[in-house]
């Protein structure tokens, strides 16, 4: 933890609490294929839950985020050395596949399992 490594970084401030509450995490999100403009060729499912990752990759990177060492160092560089170096980004880490039933342009019907369609967890990197 940055505050325990660098003594001049306070551990308990309002800013700290805000960043803890807004830490990088997975947010459930549903969208319909109609909204995406794909309802004329996707038969099933009707709803798609891609989810998304949002939040701050603060100097304290929680263990569960599976961040690489590089992210921890970049976070420290941003906080302690150079603010122009950005904080690590909050991005999807694990994904789930999704089965889609669709109509092809020639009228064929296609069942297909697509990899990497649903965000299952997030990471800072």
């Amino acid at each position, binding site marked *: 933890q940055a505050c325990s490594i660098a003594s001049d970084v306070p551990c308990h401030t309002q800013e700290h609490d805000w960043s803890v509450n807004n830490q990088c995490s997975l947010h459930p999100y549903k969208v319909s294929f109609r909204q995406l403009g794909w309802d004329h060729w996707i038969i099933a499912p009707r709803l798609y839950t891609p989810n998304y990752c949002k939040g701050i990759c603060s100097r304290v990177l929680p263990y569960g985020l599976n961040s690489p060492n590089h992210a921890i160092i970049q976070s420290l560089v941003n906080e302690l050395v150079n603010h122009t170096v950005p904080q690590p980004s909050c991005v999807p880490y694990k994904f789930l596949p999704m*089965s889609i039933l669709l109509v092809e342009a020639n009228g064929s019907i296609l069942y297909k399992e697509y990899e990497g369609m649903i965000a299952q967890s997030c990471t800072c990197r």
Partner: protein
Amino acid sequence: KAGWPSITLLADDLSLPLNLDLAKEAPGKGMKPRPQGYPLRYMLKLYQRSADLHGHPRENRTIGAKMVRLVKPSANAVRPLRGPWHVQTLDFPLASNQEAYELIRATVVYRHQLHLVHYHLSCHVEPWVPKCLTKPFSSSEMGSFKPPPMSKAWTEMDITHCVQQRLWNRKGRRVLRLRFMCEQQKGSEVLEFQWHGMASLDVAFLLLYFNDTNKSIQAKLTQGQEELTDRESSPLMRSAR
């Protein structure tokens, strides 16, 4: 879709991940009308057995493939009546080979009973290709694969061997031609049967099952690297160095 040019361009790059072809497959709004009838019901059943309401693939799915394409005949020609026989020729266009996918099974689903007003016909299909091996669908030979339950009037025939050996590796336009043959049921009088409207009926469709080869290519690459490493570390190679 007009709003996707950049993604469509990206999808043409074969080095990009497989899932980008989702954008590539998106047809324009001016596509053919949505399929209806039994072919659509069949694929919906197949989907329901393979994925839940949210589209998550079921762990116990028995489809045995990552992709299933239902192909409807592009053209059908009706032959003149010959006694009690009614013959229809069906052409199924086979899309171009995609290297990322391997054809693992091909079946034809057809109506073996046709109940029309005043007529009851029993039907079967025959491949146009000579000496082409076909067999009635046998689930015992398919391992864990189980097709969705079918309506009584429909049946399924395995033509994997026929498609793989005779057609699949051909270059250029590939069309699978099948004869759909119906006979008036025995005991009934041979009547002047009109095929009006028959051509538009759903009488048969083709199912092509694929698995993606990306994982197998990756496995081969890894295996190749391991073999190379093994060879390099062998005493023979060391002495040669």
